[in-house]
Every structure is written in C-alpha cells, then in structure tokens.
C-alpha cells in the first residue's frame, strides 16, 4: 500500500494529540516485538502507534482507519503466548496503555477499570477493598486487564473453583470495529440472562471490538490454606487429579505441579533440598477460615489415595513462599539457560495420564531437532500441562526456532483434539488459528469469518490473527 | 525527541572539551571546589583523603546553566547552549560564571554546609582524612555515564596517577556516583588498582556509637528517606543511612519504593531531557511528600532534582550532610 506517512502522522495527531502519536521506527519496533522469540520482520512493522485516552478517540481512530482501509492492531502488553500481540501486517497500533482509570463502588458491588491497567497493580489497588481479582497470569507485572478479558483467561487458576474472569464481568465500554461506541451489560450485581453483548465480546480476542473499560464485580478475597505434597513420580499426581474429578472432591483454587526434573531445578533455585520426585502444591480456598481449614483437611485425606511420600499443610508463610516460588524459578531456569518451546495441554480429565505420556513421547522425538530435553509443570488441577522441549543453548538459528515451535505446537494441539480438550489459558487465534479450524471444524471457522465480516467488513481490527498469519 | 542527536552530541562535545582542557566538566580553571573548606585547616597530605570530586560544589553552576537553557525557546535552546557553554569555556581561564540568583548562592552555601557536616561527623567518630584542596580531581563520572568510556581513559589514568603521587591509599567519597566510579569503574582501566574506596555513610555507620544524638529542635524529628539508585542498587549501601539516623535520634520513614526498590529522581538525563526529568521527579516527589514534608537524601543529584518542588509543595529537602554536626572554621 502506498501510504503518505506524513499525512498519516498529521491525521493521527489531530485525533490523539502530538504527544500520543508516533511514526518513528524505534517506537514502531517496540510495539511490533512481542513475546515470541523470532525476529520482527518488515511486514510486522506498524506505520504508526497511537495512544488514545478514551473511547471517543478510539472511535475516531477506527472510523479513520475504515475510511483509509488501514488495519488497526490493539496492544495491551504484547505478552500473549500465542502471538496475538504482534502486528501481522502494516497497521496502526492502538496502545491501550493510557486508559488506566480505576473507580471502586463498594455500594454497587463492582469496580470499573480502564483496559490498560496492569494486573499486578490492579490486584494491589483492590486490596484495601478486600476484593479478589480472578486472574493470575505469570506476566501480571505487565499484562493488562483488557488483554485478560479479551482472551478471557484466568491463567493459573483452577476453572472449576474460580471460573473465568469473564464470569465476573458485569459490563464493558467497547468500540466496535466500525467506530460505534457500545455500553454492554448491566450496573446491577445480577448479570442479564439471554443474548447480551458482554457474553460474546468477552473472549473475542480483539477481533470484534476494542475494550475500553471493564466493570467487574467485587468478590471478597477468599481465605487460603496451603498444601504441599511430594510424590515418587508425576504419574501419582496425574492419578490424583483424575481421582479428584471422578470422586467429586471440592477443588482447590490453585493446584500446581512440577515434574521430577522441574522440581529439582526449581527447589534448588530457591535454596531448598531437591525433592525425591515430583511435587504438587495446592491452595485450598473458602470464604471463611474454618471453611478452608475443613476443606484442607478433607483434601489432605483424599490425597493419600495417590500415595504421596508426604503431604502436609504449610502454615509458615516463609516456608510456603519458598515452595511456591520454586514453580516460577523452574520456568526461569529453563528460559535463562537455553531455548524453550512450550505447549498448553488441557484435556478431558480422565485422559490426563495418557495425554501426558503421549506429550512426553512427542517432545522427546521431534523431527525438527534431535537431542532436546523434556520438562513439564503447570496447573495440573485445571487440568493444564505445560510440556516443554528444552534445548540448553540460545545459539540456534531463527529458522530452527520457528520450526521447533511450530512442531511442538502442532503436535501438542493434536493431543488437545485427540483427548477432547482445547487448552484453557491462551487464545484460539493467531498461532492457534490452525488448531481452531481442526478442533471445531471448517463450518465453525467459516461462521467465525462471517461474524468477523459482519462486525468488521473492512477487516480492520487485528487483521491476520483470525487468518493465522505470522 | 526532536534534535535529540544534536542535543546529546553537543553536551558530549562540550563536556569532553572541558574535561580535556581543564579537567573539569564545567570547564572552570579557578578552583571553585575548595571554598567550602576555607578555614578548616584540613591536612593536605595523607594516605586517606576525602574525595568530594567537586560534585556538591558544581550544583549551583549546573543549575544556573540548565535554567538559562530551559528559559530559552526550544529552537534557541540548542543555539543558546552553544553560546552559554562557549562563553563559559572562554571565561574558564579568567573567572567563574557569577552566580546571579540569590537561590543559587543559597545552594552554594548549602553545599558547603553539607561537606562541613560530613567532615564534622567523620572527625567526631575519630576519622581525620586529608583533603587535596586545589589538586582535588573530578572523577569523570558524567562522561562515563554518557558512554564516553574510551574517551575518558586518559582522565581516569590522570586521576589515579595524581592520587598515587600523593601517597593516597584510601579514599572517602561523599556521593554515590563518584563512589561507584572510583570503586567499580576505575579498576577496569587500571591494573591492580590498589585504592580502597568507602562512602562516608559506610565509615560513619561502622562507628555509629560515637555519634551523638542531635539536640532537640536542631532538625525535624522525622524524615522520609529517598535512597539514590546508585547507592542501593550499584553499591549495596542501604542500612547505613538508617543506622546513622538512629544514632542521631531522628525517625526515618520509608516511602513506597525504597531501599533496593527505590525510584529514580530523574537526575541523570537532565543535561539533555529536562522535560523527562521533571516528569520522573514529579512522580517521586509525590511518593515522598505523601508521607512527610521533610525529605532526607544522600546524593547531590537527588538533592538538586527534588528541591525544585520545595516552594510549590511546602517541603524541605535535606542532605544527610546538613544534619550531621558541622565542622566549624578555626577562629
């Protein structure tokens, strides 16, 4: 496309102001580079970056974009693990970073927050109100509430306990791709039943609207009791999770595991003795202290059926912080010391063990690379396994990185299909567009394309994500 | 963002030129850095010296120059800087830029009080370093921070040779930037660098029991403390200021973002991007002012950047040196 960059700059400055429109290459680059490890290419570079402060400015940008037929790519934090964040074609990047207002209305039972608010900061800001923020991404220092709600992910939590963040969304202020501003949902603590827009705009991955403001209910922070359990092998943990579902045991808020190798590196990294095998950590939650103590007692008894070497409630805060942080440290170890290619395997509860072993087999027998290692950890109670191919060096060619990432992804996604699951943390477009087609079929995909066309006839918003472009 | 390249390159050129010619970043030949010590009769020779590296003494002159530049229109600012600095350069051999505003004279006195406080406290705990007076060098830190490593190697070597020739084995520094320069950077360019470097906070903290509680009414009872970035994250000097405060009998309040997590005052980029510096210092002053109108700092850069809010926000920024017992001039 022949674009007059000077004119574009002038036009965008008119909409958002001189301080909030950027067409220089260094800025463009930092918005093009997302979490994916491969290099930014020419076609990923945006023409411009705009930083609006409200829905009116966004509406104006979108109307302009539709008129000029220039795509617009939304930017929260660029930390999507399926590549949603990277622009797939030359575009205007719309950064939500300046939309950071927060208003808490305890008397109404909700708070309203701008899409650009970072999760960790939001959690802290809600503390004085004793309110729960039901989203726990590992990237929370920089991930935005807009991103979390547009993908509708709780990240690390067990869905059966905490459901999805979308379930807590009472309404939103959004801008449709053609520039109309829409107020959805309700101001009452009771959500509307029926065909209401919040339901299909939450989780729409930036394809159907730009989220500006989110209204979420205020839920009191639960009380927590923590349990750690040591096992001889990951298999015992898998059996435990499968039994937890089949026996209808009340589920924890968090249920994490580290396999034999990951637990060793994680524990050593936090200064603890390496455990004998695999490790599981749970956060038993309830609205009352008595409730979570009772729940922990019941769960501890239940755990015995999985034959742990030891399972105990941990009340000492320092001890728990150490154990809990071994999870993040295991991940850090992998990322620091080499190249890591991950997956998200979330399958039918009774197929968990089979899926795990098949994943292990796949990762240890890749076509695109020989000699990598297998590590796994994750939110096993959700149930989600993050199975990793680990190559202990960063010095591998760009093409190999892409090839390994693609192979790991494709084959583990096939497991999701084979065993009735779909993943539960990351979006379904961008690098998962192929999976989306395979999982739900061409008819559903065509329906999505039609829906996209209906709301976005010029394919302005996040063009390339539904298509699965790189 | 506009003309950033020209701004930075001019600043670099002027600073380097000044350093090469006069060994001073401001290009002054007349030893403005010794006036604070008039009448103190500090020994001029010794294996342990106090190294101010001229940092506190530079403050009023830097303020005057940056204020001059800031008042000029953006377009003129570049040309203005040229003019002012080359004027300074020409005058360097003759006389100092006269400090015009009263506020700047006060800043000069404040710097002197700070240094006299540091010396006074050191004497109180039984440490009597020498002071090189006119021979005292500048460490080169500003140019190093701007990336001119190779360019200042001659200066670094010169400073080391000077200290060596004076028999200096130990150095007590008064600001974190110089400390970092002398302790961490110099050894990279000088083989078997033998000089032991300690910041005065470290020296005082080790001997804190010899410090006396301040008399009531001498200073405010409590301060909110602002840790300099370099002090905590580069040098790991964190608890010393608290220990000294405790020995002096003052209460120290910790702000949001403190100790190893301290938030920057914005100072390091003021030479070129004053607007950004103001935005950053504005954020920090808010975090501090929320807790206490008396702010305690231990760095001349932090001092100069945070004290700009004193009037508008009814605050007072104190350097640690100001609350230490002052070394008075001999009668």
């Amino acid at each position, binding site marked *: 496309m022949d674009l007059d960059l000077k004119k574009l700059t002038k036009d965008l400055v008119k909409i958002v102001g001189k301080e909030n429109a950027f067409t220089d290459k260094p800025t463009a680059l930092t918005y093009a580079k997302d979490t994916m490890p491969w290099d*930014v290419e020419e076609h990923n570079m945006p023409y411009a970056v705009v930083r609006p402060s409200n829905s009116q400015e966004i509406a104006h940008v979108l109307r302009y974009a539709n008129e000029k037929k220039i795509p617009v790519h939304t930017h929260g934090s660029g930390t999507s693990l399926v590549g949603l964040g990277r622009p797939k074609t030359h575009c205007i990047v719309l950064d939500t970073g300046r939309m950071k207002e927060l208003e808490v209305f305890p008397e109404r039972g909700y708070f309203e927050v701008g899409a650009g608010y970072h999760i960790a900061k939001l959690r802290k800001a809600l503390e004085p109100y004793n309110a729960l923020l039901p989203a726990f991404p590992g990237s929370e220092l920089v991930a935005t509430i807009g991103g979390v709600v547009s993908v509708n992910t709780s990240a690390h939590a067990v869905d059966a306990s905490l459901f999805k963040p979308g379930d807590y969304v009472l309404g939103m202020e959004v801008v449709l791709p053609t520039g109309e501003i829409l107020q959805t949902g309700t101001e009452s603590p009771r959500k509307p039943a029926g065909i209401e827009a919040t339901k299909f705009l939450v989780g729409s991955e930036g394809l159907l609207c730009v989220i500006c403001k989110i209204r979420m209910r205020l839920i009191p922070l639960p009380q927590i009791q923590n349990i750690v359990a040591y096992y001889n092998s990951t298999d015992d943990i898998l059996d435990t999770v499968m039994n937890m579902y089949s026996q209808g045991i009340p589920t924890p808020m968090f249920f994490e595991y580290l396999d034999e190798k990951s637990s060793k590196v994680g524990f050593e990294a936090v200064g603890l003795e390496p455990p004998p095998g695999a490790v599981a950590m749970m956060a038993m939650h309830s609205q009352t202290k008595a409730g979570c103590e009772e729940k922990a007692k019941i769960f501890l008894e239940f755990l015995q059926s999985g034959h742990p070497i030891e399972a105990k409630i941990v009340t000492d805060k320092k001890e728990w912080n150490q154990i809990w942080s071994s999870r993040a440290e295991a991940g850090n170890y992998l*990322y620091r010391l080499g190249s890591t290619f991950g997956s998200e395997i979330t399958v039918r509860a009774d197929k968990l063990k089979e899926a795990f072993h098949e994943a292990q087999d796949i990762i240890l027998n890749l076509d695109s690379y020989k000699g990598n290692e297998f590590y796994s950890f994750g939110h096993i109670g959700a149930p989600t396994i993050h199975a990793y191919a680990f190559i202990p060096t960063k010095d591998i060619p760009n093409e190999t990185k892409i090839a390994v990432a693609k192979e790991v992804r494709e084959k583990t996604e096939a497991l999701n299909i084979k065993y009735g699951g779909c993943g539960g943390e990351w979006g379904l477009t961008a690098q998962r567009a192929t999976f989306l087609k395979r999982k739900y079929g061409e008819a559903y995909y065509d329906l999505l394309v039609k829906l996209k066309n209906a709301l976005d006839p010029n394919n302005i918003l996040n063009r390339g994500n539904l298509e699965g472009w790189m | 963002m506009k003309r950033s390249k020209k701004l930075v390159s001019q600043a670099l050129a002027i600073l380097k030129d000044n350093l090469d010619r006069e060994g001073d970043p401001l290009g002054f030949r007349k030893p403005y850095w010794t006036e604070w010590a008039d009448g103190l009769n500090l020994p001029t020779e010794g294996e342990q010296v106090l190294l101010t590296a001229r940092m506190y003494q530079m403050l009023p002159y830097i303020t005057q120059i940056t204020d001059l530049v800031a008042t000029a229109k953006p377009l003129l600012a570049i040309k203005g800087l040229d003019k002012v600095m080359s004027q300074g350069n020409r005058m360097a051999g003759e006389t100092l830029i006269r400090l015009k505003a009263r506020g700047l004279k006060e800043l000069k006195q404040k710097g002197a009080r700070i240094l006299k406080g540091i010396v006074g406290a050191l004497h109180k705990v039984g440490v009597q370093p020498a002071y090189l007076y006119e021979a005292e060098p500048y460490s080169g830190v500003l140019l190093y921070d701007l990336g*001119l490593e190779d360019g200042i190697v001659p200066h670094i070597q010169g400073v080391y040779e000077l200290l060596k020739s004076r028999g200096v084995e130990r150095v007590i520094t008064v600001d974190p930037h110089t400390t970092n320069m002398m302790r961490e950077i110099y050894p990279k360019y000088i083989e078997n660098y033998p000089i032991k470097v300690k910041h005065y906070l470290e020296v005082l903290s080790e001997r804190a029991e010899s410090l006396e509680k301040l008399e009531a009414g001498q200073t405010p009872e409590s301060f909110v403390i602002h840790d300099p970035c370099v002090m905590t994250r580069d040098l790991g000097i964190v608890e010393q200021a608290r220990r000294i405060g405790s020995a002096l009998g003052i209460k120290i309040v910790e702000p949001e973002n403190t100790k190893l997590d301290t938030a*920057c005052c914005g100072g390091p980029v003021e030479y070129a991007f004053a607007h*950004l510096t103001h935005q950053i210092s504005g954020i920090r002053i808010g975090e501090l002012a929320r807790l206490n109108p008396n702010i305690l700092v231990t760095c001349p850069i932090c001092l100069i950047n945070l004290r700009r809010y004193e009037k508008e926000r009814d605050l007072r920024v104190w350097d640690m040196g100001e609350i230490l017992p002052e070394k008075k001039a001999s009668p």
Partner: protein
Amino acid sequence: MDVNTRQDKIETLLKEVAKCRSCRFCVDVCPTYQASEGLESMSAYGRLQIIKYLLMGVLSFDDPLTYTLYSCLQCRRCENICKSKGQNIDICSIIQLGRSLLSRELLEGSGHEKI
C-alpha cells in the same frame, strides 16, 4: 564485560540481548516508562530491542533512537527485577555499552546512519 574493540562490543551486545526472553518484567518498573505513561520504547525491554535492531541494520541512528537510548537513567531498577524474576541480564550495562558505541560517533559529529 571487558570489551575493547568495536567488533567485540557489537558481538557482546548481540549475545547479551539474545538472552532476553521477552518476559517484560522490566517494563513496568522503569521510571521513564512510568513518566511517559507507558510508552513501550521508554522501557528497559524496549531499549534492548532497539539496540538489537540497530545492530541488525533495521533501525538507523536518528533522533528518536538517540532519545530512547540516552533517556535511560541507568538506575538499574530493571536489572533488580530481571535478576530476581527474569533472565539475570545486566540490562543497564548493555544500554551503556550501546551508548559507548554511539557516543564516539556523536562526538565526532559524523552521521553514520546505520551501524
């Protein structure tokens, strides 16, 4: 990092920046990011990427690039969090090394647009 020649510096820079895994923990803590209301190029992560793509020849040594690299305060807040939660990279030292490559050119007043 004991680097002498220009080529040494470039190699070191590319190697160090390659360690970054884009976790972005260093973004929010940067005072310039906070002051600019969250502009990605005014962050530790942004600056690392800018250095990389400058060395790869994608970016030029122009005014916007100078501004991003020389506006770093060298305050090490990013390193603090990178060492505890991220990749343990000496981010400020890398930016400083990048500057040292450029400062010479700025001083000489030459306009080598691409490194």
